[in-house]
């Protein structure tokens, strides 16, 4: 019996081991939750995604230009393959935001092309998100490049392309870049920023979402063999949707729900337009001279505050300037009739010429009635103001190079350069501050008179009724 009991204990022990062993086998290890991945990639990093996108839009390989029907207008857009925001959420779903350069250069809008995949890596229909910035946010955005305090509205534009190859409801246009037109705008707009300045589009059946943007900034640094590149700042914005619904309780026009916002996070990538693209209307410059002008304009914007203000004034008022050549000018000229700046030749695409001619464009907008009223009396005022401002700003903020007002004209009167320099130095206390116009008014018109005498091309009657408010408004904005 005792032997049996001992045998039973052994069997019991064996059974317990088996049970415990089985229980251990059935313990499912808890996986660490996957973190959401957000990173900037290029098309080379995600070739399959880029290829799928091209197919779904209907673009051929290597192409990046197309036009989008955004409702009231058609916008020419160019895909930026070098900066794509990739988002992989905790379930493995991938979303890509491609930056779209708006070739129509409306400074208040920017576009993203959104491409989403489900967890099985099947691609959804791509769509365009059009972000329209509120007026009071535009300036902040271009100054900071940040969407942190975004105010404005978004609109979803579906890309419809059936298997036949022709986008639904759209047409392939003729030749030329961007000849493909796609897009079926969703009714209404998606207001952003807590329903602030962005509003609905006024459609009867607008699907509206209230949402806000969150922007995070982090740094990336590439290192190899202990040597690191300088850290690169990367900002990420995401739209957090709080509430959605049809404003009148109806469904969308075609009964589909494509226009409803996607669940989850939508990555955003912004492209701050190149300054030249913002201001350029028609362009007759050669490609090489266009790039020279682009570099010169960037140099101008990196220089003094007054020129940045001048440029901001022109672009925020959506003033476009045509660029080309004008061999009849000494170095360049602004034609107030056409709104065009013409350079004498490639050598004259310089910082000094661009400053002056853009300032004339600014004067044309600043003075009520434009420059057309000053082709006779007052022309000396207009010309001297532009040159005086350049010299004054150079004296205070630059290296005191002098003088645009008395350049070649002073060659026959060299002492004028000295006296003008000393005057500039005196009124700025050695280049330490910009004066008030009221403090220099008498001397200002004295030097304008000298300028007129020494520059026969500008020898027109002076009017003392035209004070240089264009220049001093800019100067005061920067003080």
């Amino acid at each position: 019996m005792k032997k049996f009991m001992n045998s039973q204990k052994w069997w019991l022990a064996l059974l317990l081991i088996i049970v415990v062993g089985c229980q251990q086998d059935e313990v499912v290890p808890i996986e660490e939750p996957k973190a959401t991945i957000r990173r900037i990639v290029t098309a080379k990093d995600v070739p399959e995604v880029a290829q799928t996108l091209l197919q779904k839009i209907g673009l051929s390989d290597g192409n990046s230009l197309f036009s989008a029907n955004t409702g009231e207008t058609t916008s020419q857009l160019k895909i930026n393959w070098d900066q794509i925001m990739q988002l992989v959420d905790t379930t493995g779903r991938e979303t890509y935001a491609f930056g779209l350069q708006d070739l129509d250069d409306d400074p208040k809008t920017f576009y993203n092309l959104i491409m989403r995949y489900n967890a099985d890596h099947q691609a959804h229909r791509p769509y365009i998100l059009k972000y329209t910035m509120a007026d009071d946010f535009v300036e902040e955005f271009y100054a900071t490049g940040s969407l942190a305090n975004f105010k404005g509205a978004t609109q979803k534009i579906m890309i419809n392309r059936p298997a036949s190859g022709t986008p639904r409801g759209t047409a392939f246009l003729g030749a030329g870049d961007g000849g493909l037109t796609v897009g079926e705008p969703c009714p209404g707009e998606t207001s952003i920023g807590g329903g602030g300045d962005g509003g609905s589009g006024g459609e009867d059946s607008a699907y509206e979402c209230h949402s806000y943007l969150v922007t995070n900034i982090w740094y990336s640094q590439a290192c190899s063999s202990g040597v690191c590149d300088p850290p690169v700042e990367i900002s990420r914005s995401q739209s957090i949707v709080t509430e959605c619904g049809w404003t009148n309780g109806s469904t969308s026009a075609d009964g589909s729900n494509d226009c409803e916002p996607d669940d989850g996070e939508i990555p955003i990538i912004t492209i701050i337009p190149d300054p030249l693209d913002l201001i350029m209307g028609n362009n007759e410059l050669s490609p090489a001279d266009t790039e020279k002008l682009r570099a010169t304009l960037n140099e101008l914007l990196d220089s003094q505050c007054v020129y940045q203000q001048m440029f901001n004034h022109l672009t925020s008022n959506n003033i476009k300037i045509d660029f080309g050549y004008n061999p009849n000018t000494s170095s360049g000229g602004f034609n107030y009739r056409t709104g065009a700046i013409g350079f004498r030749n490639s050598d004259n695409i310089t910082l000094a010429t661009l400053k002056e001619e853009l300032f004339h464009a600014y004067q044309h907008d600043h003075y009520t009635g434009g420059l057309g009223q000053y082709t006779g009396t007052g022309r000396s005022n207009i010309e001297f103001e532009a040159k005086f401002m350049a010299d004054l700003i150079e004296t205070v903020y630059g290296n005191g190079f002098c003088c645009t007002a008395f350049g070649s004209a002073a060659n026959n009167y060299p002492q004028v350069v000295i006296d003008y320099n000393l005057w500039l130095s005196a009124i700025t206390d050695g280049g330490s501050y910009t004066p008030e116009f009221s403090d220099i008014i008498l001397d200002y018109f004295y030097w304008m008179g000298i300028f007129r005498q020494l520059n026969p091309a500008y020898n027109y009657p002076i009017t003392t009724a035209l004070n240089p408010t264009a220049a001093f408004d800019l100067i005061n904005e920067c003080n």
Partner: protein
Amino acid sequence: MRLVIILLIFSVNIGYGQIDTRSKTLQFGEKEFKIDNRRNGFTLDNENNINLKEGYEWNVLLNAKYDRHLLQKLVLEVFPTNRINELQNKTSNKKPSIHLIWHINPSGEICSVTFLLQDSNVINISEFSSLEDKMKQYIKVTDFKKDDSFSKDFYTLTFRIRLSKILDGSFVK
């Protein structure tokens, strides 16, 4: 012996004292500096420079290239840190600067330097002389246009050197 010492002190005072701004010629070593009163200040020229003779004319350059690092080095040799600090304290706007005109020959060599001064200027004659010598000896100007619009053999480039920028290195950017 006393007379020699007194004369020596006197000559040092001329070199390092403040400049008498009345229009006149000031002897400094072998140089003769002409002080010329102008509407808003005065100019200082070394009269021994051949290109400042009567009838001399020039083309005004709005810009040109030169070695800014070298110029910074030369200026710092004449105005060491403690001297610039001293000038900053003495200058009413705390931004002492040297406003000058380079007279340049077609090869880009500096033939002469005209200094433009306001009454408040506290730089002395020996510093002007030394700076002129160094600029003429070492600086060469390049990349200035010599097209049809330039009709004279000589050129001028007018600019200001802000000493605080020289000191903090921002001048060379």
